């Protein structure tokens, strides 16, 4: 009898291993979200980012036509994996369907949520904004994203990313400590505080003559994001 139970345990262990292997293989080990990883590996050289923003006006941290009736504020932290996911999965759709169409303009709002190292990345993004490349810089940093608070946003990484997006690297590094960049960072932090931003990414929508209101989304992928954006813009 004891032997039968031990055999049953062995069979259960074997069945469990087989079941997990089958589940992982059939379900693709999380295939529904494989896009960020595969996309990252195919985006070397910034070619995808270049394609995403090609022909779209940029002024400072603003992406899109100044005449767009609505503004979407995108609160992000360059160390935040969720932000990276949104930038890779959904931002191209938003740019193609809303920004290029002149329906909305995007304003990058970098805030420190994860750690002090985020400040380096945020200042680099705003410095790139002085050259009209804030969004490309954010994208280039997401492509290099490392573990949170591992100190991965070094000046070396900033220089490499800046070179990839064809920015003036020396000017960008110098501008990271400029008054213009510091002003943008303070403005972002203040705006995040007044909007009650608790995490990143957070999205704020402002329509003509209206106040900024948080966009309530069901998910960060296009299928969950764009319906919320449509409703907010209607």
């Amino acid at each position, binding site marked *: *009898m*004891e032997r039968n*139970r*031990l055999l*049953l*345990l062995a069979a*259960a*262990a074997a*069945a*469990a*291993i087989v*079941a*997990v292997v089958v*589940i*992982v293989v059939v*379900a*693709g*080990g*999380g*295939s*529904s*979200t*494989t896009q*960020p*990883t595969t996309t990252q590996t195919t985006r070397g050289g910034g070619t995808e980012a270049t394609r995403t923003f090609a022909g779209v006006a940029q002024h400072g941290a603003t992406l899109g036509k100044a005449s767009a009736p609505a503004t979407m504020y995108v609160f992000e932290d360059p160390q*935040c*994996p*969720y932000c*990276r*996911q949104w930038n890779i999965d959904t931002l191209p759709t938003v740019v193609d369907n809303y920004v290029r169409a002149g329906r909305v303009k995007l304003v990058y709002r970098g805030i420190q*949520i*994860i750690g002090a190292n985020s400040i380096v990345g945020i200042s680099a993004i705003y410095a790139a904004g002085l050259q009209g490349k804030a969004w490309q810089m954010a994208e280039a940093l997401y492509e290099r994203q490392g*573990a*949170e*608070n*591992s100190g991965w946003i070094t000046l070396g990484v900033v220089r490499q990313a800046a070179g990839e997006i064809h920015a003036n690297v020396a000017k960008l590094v110098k501008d990271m400590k400029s008054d213009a960049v510091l002003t943008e960072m303070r403005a972002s932090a203040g705006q995040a505080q007044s909007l009650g931003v*608790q*995490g990143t*990414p957070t999205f704020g929508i402002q329509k003509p003559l209206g106040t900024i209101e948080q966009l309530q989304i069901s998910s*960060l992928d296009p299928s969950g994001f764009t319906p919320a954006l449509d409703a907010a813009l209607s």
Partner: protein
Amino acid sequence: MRLRAAIAVACAIGIGIAAYLTYVHFAHVAPVCTTGGCEKVQKSKYAELAGVPVALLGLVAYVVLLALAFVRGINAAFAGVVVAFVGVAFSGYLLWAQLGPIGAICQWCLGNDLTIAVVAALYVVRMLSESDTPA
């Protein structure tokens, strides 16, 4: 009885961990983290299986294991062993993913690994000591 009570306590801990990670997933907030890699793990492709958060799958498994702790008999013990073994095997797969492809460690996942291992061990002991017929 004491063994099943221990299983219930371990399952309750597992439910707490899995419920928190499920909340973090759907609320899009960063988990409390001391290992520095929780958010990266949570947002990796391994955090979902066929579109379902693995934290939610874990939550369901722990609820089933907890329910089985309140059922007497060898059949319930064996069912618990099977579910717990699947949990251990899947946790092993996720631990491999953290150490390998993701390159980040999540303290909550490690806590879950330990918890499911304890639950599985307790269910094995229960199966070996449970009487044949339901009381």
